[in-house]
């Protein structure tokens, strides 16, 4: 192999620090031309930083890069674009109020007159669309398109600028399995036409499905490169974490008893008049985990808020542990907690914790009025500290320092702190939202075990997650939501990616429809 020509991009000894954080340590990487290269690693492993360096967003402190054998030193994204690097960010870099065309043209206009740029871009986009199967409605407003199409716009943006190297950061995070498959087909086509693709992801299955080679990062350093055909999920996970990891937690048969969550014809209309939750009905029994699946934004957040007493139902009712909540008899988070409900919110940064608080303060939030934390009118600091200390040890929150600011814990440990807080009060009902979002593989394993053991202790667990793997691993029954309504329910033994993917797109497979398979229905 003639080395100079064969690599689309070559990094040597890239080093980058942000203050005290050593984000990238001495990273070297070679990506052969016309291949799909996966970069995997846990949160904070430095993948995104590395890609941002290639894209000219950050500047490396040390090291050098080559593109097609030529030295490459981008000092801005503009330089990277000019050298043929395109990037699709995890959070799309789109102007939502603009049309597709305007988004594509932004920053790559032909001249100062907008109409001329738009007209010529339209022609070029049509060409690109036909040659790569990337059809998009060019005059639609981007914010009104589904995420799968928005992502296509991002890819088109890169190709429009002549990208020969395409970097995708967590591209499937927001997609249904079918949309993800479609994306992979597009990537195949791009590869066939000579584009080099780098994918950053934490989804091991996808890495195996789509890449040619994989590089694994851990704590800012490159720990290994392997050819995809020579590796496995377990092997990659071990490289990422540095020890053996159980990807699938063992889960015994559920032994459900009486129903603790009853949702009947629940509706919720938000303040702008949009119906977010439409006539939902289901139940969750003691000793089982019911998973709520769906592409994010299909009513899951509202459902959790309704159950948690944060918003009040427009109609219908919720029976939590024999307490009825309805429009006429609304509740609040304090009351809901008093009913024996623990709520691990979806977004720990917005709802679960206050980043600037100390761990022990965050640890009592929502339970701060309990007698055990108070002495007369004053808080009992000592009791709080002790309780927090005890439970940090018990729930493996590291570092176990109750006075450390919440923001200084890793995502996994923040989440463990929230879980500790909610579970320690021994609730009968547990509402769990996205328990492992932004959490390392090692901590995921632990959190999953905790969720299952609380089920085995007889709690009714409602699990909302956008990660299908998580739902299938944990839930006993799976309810799929689409556009605020229940599409259907499957037993997790009958469920697979394909079926759930279809349901997430509001298509109920024939053989699972009510009546066709009675043992799958329990409500």
């Amino acid at each position, binding site marked *: 192999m003639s080395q100079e020509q064969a690599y689309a991009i070559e990094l040597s000894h890239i080093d980058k620090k*942000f203050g005290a954080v050593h984000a990238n340590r001495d990273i070297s990487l070679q990506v052969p031309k016309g291949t799909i290269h996966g970069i995997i690693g846990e949160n904070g492993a430095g993948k*995104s930083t590395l890609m941002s360096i290639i*894209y000219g*967003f*950050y500047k490396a402190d040390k090291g050098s890069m080559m593109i097609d054998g030529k030295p490459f030193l981008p000092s*801005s*994204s*503009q*330089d*990277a*674009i000019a050298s043929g690097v395109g*990037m699709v*960010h995890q*959070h799309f*870099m*789109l*102007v*939502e*109020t*603009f049309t597709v065309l*305007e*988004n594509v*043209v*932004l*920053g*790559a*206009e032909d*001249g*100062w*007159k*907008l*109409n001329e*740029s738009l007209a010529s871009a339209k022609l070029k986009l049509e060409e690109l669309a036909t040659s790569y199967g990337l059809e998009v409605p060019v005059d639609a407003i981007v914010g009104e398109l589904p995420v799968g199409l928005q992502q296509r716009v991002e890819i088109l*943006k890169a190709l429009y600028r002549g990208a020969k190297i395409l970097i995708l950061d967590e591209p499937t995070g927001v997609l249904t399995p079918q949309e993800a498959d479609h994306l992979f087909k597009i990537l195949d086509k791009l590869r066939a036409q000579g584009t080099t693709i780098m994918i950053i992801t934490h989804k091991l299955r996808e890495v195996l499905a789509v890449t040619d080679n994989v590089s694994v990062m851990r704590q800012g350093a490159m720990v290994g490169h392997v050819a995809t055909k020579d590796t496995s999920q377990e092997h990659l996970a071990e490289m990422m974490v540095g020890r053996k990891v159980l990807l699938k937690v063992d889960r015994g048969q559920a032994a459900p008893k009486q129903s603790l969550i009853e949702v009947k014809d629940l509706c919720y209309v938000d303040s702008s008049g949009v119906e977010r939750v439409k006539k939902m009905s289901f139940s969750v029994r003691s000793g089982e985990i019911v998973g709520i699946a769906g592409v994010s934004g299909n009513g899951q957040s509202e459902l959790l808020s309704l159950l948690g007493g944060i918003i009040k139902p427009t109609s219908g009712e919720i029976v939590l542990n024999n307490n009825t909540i309805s429009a006429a008899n609304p509740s609040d988070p304090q009351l809901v907690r008093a009913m024996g409900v623990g709520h691990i919110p979806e977004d720990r940064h917005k709802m679960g914790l206050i980043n600037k608080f100390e761990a022990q303060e965050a640890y009592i939030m929502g339970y701060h009025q309990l007698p055990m934390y108070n002495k007369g009118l004053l808080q009992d600091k000592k009791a709080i500290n002790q309780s927090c200390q005890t439970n940090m040890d018990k729930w493996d929150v590291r570092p176990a320092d109750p006075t450390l600011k919440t923001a200084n814990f890793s995502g996994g440990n923040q989440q463990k702190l929230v879980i500790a807080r909610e579970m320690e009060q021994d609730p009968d009902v547990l509402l769990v939202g996205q328990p492992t979002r932004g959490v390392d593989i090692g901590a995921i394993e632990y959190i999953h075990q905790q969720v299952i053991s609380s089920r085995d202790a007889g709690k009714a667990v409602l699990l909302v997650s956008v990660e299908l793997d998580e739902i299938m691993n944990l839930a006993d029954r799976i309810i799929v939501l689409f556009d605020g309504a229940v599409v259907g329910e499957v037993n997790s033994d009958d469920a697979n990616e394909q079926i759930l993917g279809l349901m997430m797109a509001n298509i109920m497979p024939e053989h699972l429809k009510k009546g066709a398979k009675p043992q799958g229905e329990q409500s």
Partner: protein
Amino acid sequence: MFETLILMLDATIRVATPLIFASLAGMFCERSGIVNIALEGKLLAAAFAGAAVAYVTGSAWLGCIAGVLVAVCMSLLHGFATITHRGDQVVSGMAINILAVGLTVTLGRHWFKQGGQTPALSGDARFAPIHLPGADALQDVPVIGLLYSELISGHSLLEYVAFAAVPIAWYILFKTRFGLRLRAVGESPSAVDTAGISVAKMRYSAVIICGILVGLGGVYLSVGQTAQFIPNMSAGKGYMALAALIFGKWKPWTAMGACLLFGFLDSMAIRLQGVSIGEFQIPVQAIEAVPYVLTVFLLAGFIGKAVAPKAIGVPYSKERE
């Protein structure tokens, strides 16, 4: 009756002119994602600089240049605080407003010794009304004559500039590359940054344009309208312009419409002074309050959903949380 209406409309234009300048200025600034409550202070500072220089040099043009320069400098200060140093945009704007109120009076007292006012401007130190061709000839033609000679002709240069600035601003904002990037930077600065365009450069250009426009508005207040500087003469016009901008949903034509509406309410209030209903004389203060009260009502209830540029008020930083 018709003549009264024409006179009221004529007054409307005079009142609306500084509002139009200021709200277009605010539009460029806010479309780029920078909140600008400093319009008020910049109007005042430009009015003072304009009147002072016009008086000293005897030239309205030099006054105009001085006023614009001062407003641009203040805009740059706002930009330096909020773009370069990512300061809070409202705090910075408020600081500029306070600075302008104090500084204009202090300097005015020291320089002109008239309690903060500048001496009255006359002759070349003012912008003379421009009589359009044929205005005199048409004067006696019914309807059209009055309309043309009173309403369309006979305004000072800056009034025409203000109305001409509206379509120009529209064209720049919606039909040029610069406009596309400006609107993008106010909606999603990270999209602009990753497209290889400098967010800071775009925002600085926006605050400079803002300075020029609001400077013209300030100069109009003193050199054009009143013929002298009076302490605090901006009297909330900057805030009114901001309200018009929101009322007009950050678009030039509708913002102009809102400015004209405010101007019309104001001139109506002047007309209504001394009018009594039966025995009851309407107090002047009540009438003067009408435009402001209406503004509150209009903003509160009648404009529907005004969607601000999404990134407004948020300093842009590349670093992730």
